[in-house]
């Protein structure tokens, strides 16, 4: 509701379709969140999970799905009867979908939580059709993961420093490299690590030369040595972006960029040429 305001209306919950003529009435919505969020208020069932207990909850659901009994009153703060009810609802669904956000990637357990959730979804497919999808924040996060995968075989955090692509999150991922102080120059492209990285990582960014390809004044440009503004993609220049479900869509150019402002693509082409001359 907050990060993707039209997701429920347009795609997941209220949308009317061939199999769901009545929209919301033909769907069951379960929300897992420690807060009674605006989304949770619209749900049929809200599992108010205790912080950092997501892994336990998923494990309990898997156990119930396998026919085990839960010999406790509550798991992760949720009454076991509710857990039985949710698992039953998932099994009975004609087509289920798990949408997940940063709760399962940033709480204790990190990617192990999503690993566990993937297992749950696999097991649910013994009963019905069930899928899962990350709620991508920026409009073209998925696009980058697609492009990177075509080019290198890996989705992100790719290290070319040995001359061939290597991928090992935790070692080759930006936050870890910054925390270990290994990075000596950073180029930030249309993003805002100054606003979204933890303090210790930003402290290192403040110490090294920083180039920002960015049209707005942001926390990151405040720490930059060079700011190269570009046209807004999807407003002043077209291009392709991938929706969170992997569908590529053509962005439109609606108005002209301010006079003299280059596009991202133009900037990188010129930069590539200059680098080629220097090497």
């Amino acid at each position: 509701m907050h990060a993707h305001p039209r997701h429920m209306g347009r795609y997941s919950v209220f949308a009317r379709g061939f199999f769901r003529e009545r929209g919301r009435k033909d769907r069951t919505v379960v929300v897992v969140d420690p807060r009674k969020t605006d989304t949770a208020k619209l749900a049929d069932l809200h599992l108010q999970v205790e912080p950092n207990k997501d892994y336990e909850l998923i494990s309990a659901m898997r156990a119930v799905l396998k026919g085990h009994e839960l010999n406790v009153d509550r798991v992760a703060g949720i009454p076991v009867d509710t857990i039985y009810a949710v698992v039953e609802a998932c099994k009975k669904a004609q087509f289920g979908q798990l949408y997940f956000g940063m709760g399962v990637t940033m709480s204790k357990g990190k990617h192990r939580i999503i690993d566990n959730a993937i297992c749950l979804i696999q097991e649910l497919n013994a009963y019905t059709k069930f899928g899962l999808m990350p709620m991508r924040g920026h409009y073209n996060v998925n696009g980058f993961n697609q492009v990177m995968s075509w080019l290198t075989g890996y989705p992100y955090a790719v290290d070319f420093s040995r001359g061939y692509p290597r991928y090992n999150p935790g070692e080759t991922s930006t936050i870890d490299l910054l925390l270990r102080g290994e990075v000596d120059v950073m180029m930030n492209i249309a993003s805002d690590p100054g606003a979204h990285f933890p303090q210790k990582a930003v402290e290192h960014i403040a110490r090294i030369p920083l180039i920002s390809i960015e049209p707005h004044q942001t926390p990151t440009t405040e720490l930059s040595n060079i700011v190269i503004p570009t046209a807004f993609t999807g407003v002043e220049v077209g291009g392709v972006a991938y929706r969170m479900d992997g569908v590529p869509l053509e962005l439109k150019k609606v108005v002209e960029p301010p006079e003299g402002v280059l596009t991202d693509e133009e900037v990188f082409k010129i930069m590539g040429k200059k680098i080629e001359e220097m090497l």
Partner: protein
Amino acid sequence: MVKVVKNVVCPFCGCLCDDLEILVEDGHIVGTKNACRIGHAKFMHFEGSVRYTEPLIREDKKEDFKKTDYDRAIEEAARLLVESKLPVLYGFSSISCEAQREAIMIGERIGAVVDNTATI
């Protein structure tokens, strides 16, 4: 004369809603239809919001920026990247796939770590 541009794809979140209508008058966006609050903010220019239209450069981060031209800014950026031992290219999630490809090629050429916002 207000012109309506239909079926515009919203460049904010991963939903990529493709039913926006953008109202344009004299080459400026004056309104939106169907967009959510955040999508609307993305298309509209807000009073007081700083938008850079010329490249900026400074040696010392505590000093103020000086305006420069694209050629010099890109040249300096290229030099920093070429001379770096371990550069990181980070971001990428709010640009088109075409631009992403160009930047990844740069990363490969200079032996950089190339990472996007999926990392966080």
